[in-house]
């Protein structure tokens, strides 16, 4: 099966800055694909390379097998939901949504009917006559979504789709995007710096660091088996253990990741490793206890109801043997 999007040794350099450097990437058709990374890691540039607003300085980009490296944005079968939505302020919601068919020459009655259909899809059926300025942030996002979907793209690109929404709306929108993607069956590619968003929505994700791919896989895979210190720390703020500490805990002398939620507190006498409690933070369903173990910070998530140590007390660390994940890469 051909990939929806494929990058072959794609680079985009801005002068000396290697925004995207030698990236190989395959995005499977029908997947909900996340590009995750801190700001400046190259994820947005990758998205703009797919939409055509950036041209690669080297390498080839294919969309459904077709080399689009020289194709301008208006001739690509992808559409974008922009981070700031980029709704046309002078047009009402219906004409915003109908913009794609309008420039394609579809007659007014037809394109308006299609626009209403798309507005129903995003549950904004009665908002056609409003101007974008009269809508809330969440509603604007839905209009942007309807506008991008009306052209029936084979790939929908979303640039930090939920960044501008408040927490509650963001969670509702996550579910909605996910079910919309399932229903339409088209490939969604979204960029985010929020690991929770990427983990909860995507079925495949790639993590960028300094213009390169740090790791790619399913959310479960990346979360449970980070391949590097960077990924372990960026995705889910794992405990990153130095080779010495890993050996002390019974592993090989390599960097390792130990998830706080898989770490338990134990009586100091019985534990292989003990440390001093430096912080106890109540989080509701659990508390995060941070220990200082010979200069290394290790956090453990203690479920509500269990006894909590006080700050300054001695505590030991225990975990299931398979919780310690040894990382092959040195970075």
């Amino acid at each position: 099966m051909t990939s929806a999007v494929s990058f072959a040794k794609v680079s985009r350099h801005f002068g000396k800055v290697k925004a995207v450097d030698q990236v190989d990437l395959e995005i499977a058709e029908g997947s909900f694909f996340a590009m995750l990374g801190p700001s400046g890691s190259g994820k947005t540039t990758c998205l703009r390379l797919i939409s055509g607003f950036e041209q690669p300085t080297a390498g080839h980009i294919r969309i459904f097998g077709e080399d689009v490296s020289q194709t301008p944005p208006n001739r690509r079968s992808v559409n974008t939901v922009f981070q700031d939505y980029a709704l046309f302020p002078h047009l009402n919601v219906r004409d915003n949504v109908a913009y794609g068919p309008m420039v394609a020459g579809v007659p007014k009655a037809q394109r308006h009917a299609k626009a209403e259909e798309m507005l129903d899809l995003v549950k904004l059926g009665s908002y056609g006559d409003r101007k974008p300025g009269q809508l809330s942030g969440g509603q604007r996002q839905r209009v942007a979504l309807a506008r991008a979907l009306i052209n029936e793209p084979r790939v929908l690109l979303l640039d930090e789709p939920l960044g501008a929404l408040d927490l509650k709306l963001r969670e509702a929108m996550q579910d909605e995007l996910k079910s919309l993607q399932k229903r339409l069956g088209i490939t969604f590619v979204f960029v985010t710096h929020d690991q929770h968003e990427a983990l909860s929505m995507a079925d495949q994700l790639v993590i960028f660091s300094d213009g390169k791919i740090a790791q790619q896989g399913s959310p479960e895979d990346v979360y449970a088996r980070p391949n590097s210190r960077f990924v372990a720390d960026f995705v889910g703020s794992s405990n990153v253990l130095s080779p010495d500490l890993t050996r002390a805990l019974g592993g090989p002398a390599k960097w390792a990741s130990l998830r706080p939620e898989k770490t338990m507190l134990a009586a100091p006498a019985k534990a292989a490793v003990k440390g001093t409690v430096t912080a106890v933070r109540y989080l509701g369903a659990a508390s995060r206890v941070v220990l200082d173990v010979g200069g290394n910070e290790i956090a453990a998530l203690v479920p509500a109801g269990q006894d909590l140590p006080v700050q300054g007390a001695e505590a030991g660390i225990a975990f299931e043997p398979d919780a310690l994940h040894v990382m092959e890469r040195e970075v």
Partner: protein
Amino acid sequence: MHSENKPSFGLKFAAIGGLLFLHLPILLIFLYAFTTEERSYQFPPPGLTLKWFAVTWNRPDIWPPLYLSLKVGAIATILAMILGTLVAASMSRARFFGREQIALLIILPIALPGVITGIALRSAFSVMDIPFSTLTIILGHATFCIVIVYNNAVARYRRLAGSLAEASADLGANSFQTFRHVLLPNLGTALLAGGMLAFALSFDEVIVTTFTAGQQATVPIWMLEELVRPRQRPVTNVVAMVVFAATFFPILIAYYLTRGGSETAGGGK
């Protein structure tokens, strides 16, 4: 408890005084358009009459300057709207070394004293053997009219050129469609406002005109010459009212057109 933030009596008095000082003379100009005394501006006017409007209408020497002012203003404004929009388009899009310096050069004509612009243009025209005519006045006015249009357009462009233009291209529009359906409608009011202000500035410009005009006179120059003569003084006041209307209403309209946005409406010269 709410804070007492009312201005003091002294501050109010000073503000009102300042406004009166600025605007009473304008009212006096209007008043003297109706006076019966034609040689001096005595207060209060000995009597009021409407006859100066008829006199002004019938004075043949007022029509050529008025016609010239309208022509210069209109052509300079059109020139400025075309060039100013293009400059704004390229400046808001381009990222190159020295961009800030060039932006400064573009707005310099409005910051420079009129005499400097005037002398510079006059010597340039002489060097190039261009005879002083309507054309040279238009070119002189266009130098600062462009700045007004540019200032209005560039702020609007900066917002548009980024994601709106990209959204349009993303949805399948070519560059011409993007310009026609997205840029132009959003730029429209800013351009119109810039044009109005440019016309108003051109209509009452004196200094640059003095340096770039040949034997012709625009309305403000005609008024300056008229002030020296002792006869039919109120005619000047009637013309002043016309100038006031020709400049005030475009500025007012420009103000309302750009009110909602945060863009610069212009800057006085």
